[in-house]
């Protein structure tokens, strides 16, 4: 019985938990009679969808990264040529640099805001629900609509929305997306606006689970409000914070929609991300070999991040 209650790690212990016999030599007939066919039937949707739309494409992607194909004649094996071609593309370092910069900026903008916001909102008594709804509102908007809306805000004319606001303070007008230095931060600002709600809600939920005794103990010890935040709240949130950090990292490394819609990668490739480059290789230039090669490189990097992430979350959930 105990084995039945076990989680994923022991999921595969006895092959058929309901049958007492070990059944080492099975004929197809007994397999069917024991419900093997029915079991397979249950697995069919999973095997179909994962087989065709997850496992096969992954394998094919790896194969294609060492091939060149025009879809008319048979693909030719080209070894690591595709990888070399990607590395030799002058836009490649630019795209990597942009993506890294994007990630760093996204952390700078997007990381402290939800944390502080959630701490304040968690203190609310009557307005907590209202504040949560407000904080989450931008997340609900379809990303494309949000990006397009902000693109309108970033109108570079002096009469543009943001430039009008700047005008009230005697500043601007700024060129926003038309400024090579400003375009990327502008996109990050939009992405932060669109994404901060998720993190805020998760932090609020975590804050609600901090045991009250900890605060009480700190209060009895005479800790000020700020010290309570620093010594109780933050350490208690440590794990969630780290998880959110990694999630954000993995997410921002795959940024596509925002630059695709707002700038098309411009001006002068200053907002071209890795994913945008992959898109260009594959769907504009028809160079699927280069596209899969770059995808593979990015995927290996992200897989490493995911493994780190998973190991940590497992350890924490076990403790």
């Amino acid at each position, binding site marked *: 019985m105990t084995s039945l209650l076990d989680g994923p790690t022991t999921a595969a212990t006895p092959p058929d938990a309901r049958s007492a016999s070990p059944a080492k030599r099975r004929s197809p007939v007994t397999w069917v009679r024991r419900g093997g066919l029915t079991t397979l039937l249950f697995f069919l949707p999973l095997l179909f969808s994962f087989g065709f*739309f997850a496992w096969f494409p992954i394998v094919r992607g790896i194969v294609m990264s060492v091939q060149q194909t025009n879809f008319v004649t048979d693909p030719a094996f080209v070894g690591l040529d595709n990888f070399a071609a990607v590395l030799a593309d002058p836009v490649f370092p630019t795209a990597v640099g942009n993506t890294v910069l994007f990630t760093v900026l996204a952390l700078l903008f997007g990381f402290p805001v939800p944390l502080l916001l959630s701490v304040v909102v968690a203190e609310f008594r009557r307005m907590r629900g209202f504040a949560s709804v407000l904080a989450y509102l931008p997340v609900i908007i*379809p990303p494309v609509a949000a990006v397009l809306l902000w693109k309108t805000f970033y109108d570079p004319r002096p009469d543009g929305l943001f430039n009008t606001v700047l005008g009230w303070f005697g500043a601007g007008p700024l060129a926003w997306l038309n400024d090579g230095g400003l375009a990327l931060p502008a996109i990050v600002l939009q992405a932060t606006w669109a994404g901060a709600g998720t993190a805020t809600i998760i932090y609020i939920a975590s804050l609600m689970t901090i045991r009250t005794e900890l605060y009480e103990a700190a209060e009895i010890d005479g800790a000020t409000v700020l010290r309570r935040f620093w010594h109780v709240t933050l350490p208690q949130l440590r794990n969630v914070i780290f998880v959110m950090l990694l999630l954000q990292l993995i997410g921002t490394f795959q940024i596509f929609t925002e630059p695709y819609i707002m700038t098309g990668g411009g001006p002068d490739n200053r907002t071209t991300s890795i994913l945008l480059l992959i898109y260009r290789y594959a769907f504009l230039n028809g160079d699927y070999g280069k596209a899969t090669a770059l995808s593979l490189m990015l995927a290996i990097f992200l897989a490493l991040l995911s493994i780190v992430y998973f190991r940590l979350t497992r350890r924490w959930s076990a403790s």
Partner: protein
Amino acid sequence: MTVKDSLPVSAPATAAIALAADPQQPGRRRRRRRNVEEADRSILSSFDRGKGSIRVITLLIGALVLLGLIVVSAGPLLWLAKAATSTTQDTLSQPFALWPSGFTWQNLTDALVRVQFGKYLANTAWVAIGSWLFSLLVATTGGFGLSVLRPRYAKAVYAGVLATLFIPGIVSLVPLYLTVLDLPLFGWNLLNTFWAVWLPAGASAVNVLLVKQYFDGIPRDIFEAATIDGAGAFRLFWSITLPLARPILGVVSLLSLVAAYKEFLWPLLVLPDPNLQPLSVALPRLEATTELSVYLAALFISVLVPVALFLVFQKQFLRSAGSAGAIKG
């Protein structure tokens, strides 16, 4: 959570949500939440709140934060509502003036009629509903197989599903696209059919793992008793497991519906026919081909629908979003 990524499979989100589902103790979480509500204290205690200075400061900070939230979160949407009913000229020359030339309801009707916005809205609904159904089908049957039936090959299948978590979707974007163009063994071309969006949506490791873990938490005696009573696999699945799994099915439904609604890159690739495109793909095209006021009206309608749904089902939305926070050690 998955929604941020434009790719069908998002590794980290899965793990976060799967862990958050906390399957072993279905009852524990509820208890914990109640405790929290009862205690209802955080950094500040009731004693602090009673103190004058702290009270003023917290009220002030609270008011500021709330005001900021209203301006930042709701502001853009309110502006969009205004612009959607203003003339192009007003929006361009005085973005903050309130209807200097009066209301222009025409924009909204133009967006619905001339731009055929209803068509895109219907496409979006189709995409979302189909994706949801397939996600649910794969996740429940797969989860049932992996958790309850557990044949010999379950371990391999489980490993395969788990592996897709760590292999980011990006590696398979291009080949997945080619697969959809020419489905191996069948030779079907799914391009410009909703199947191209629906079928891959089913291959979500997040959903399968979530459901599997939840099923793992159901006491085995229930299944044993039913088996002794002569229930077959289908009855176990349909009459016993599914009814018990309602909460997790809700979470999976919400996740897959929201993900499908927000998807951009994938439908952009596989639905090039404008008559099939969902909103997310149609909007950027409308931007370049429609008058600004009508385009903003279209944008407004596309925002209105999810916001209305959110305001109605805010508890469910916030809970499923916040549940990822339960990973806390």
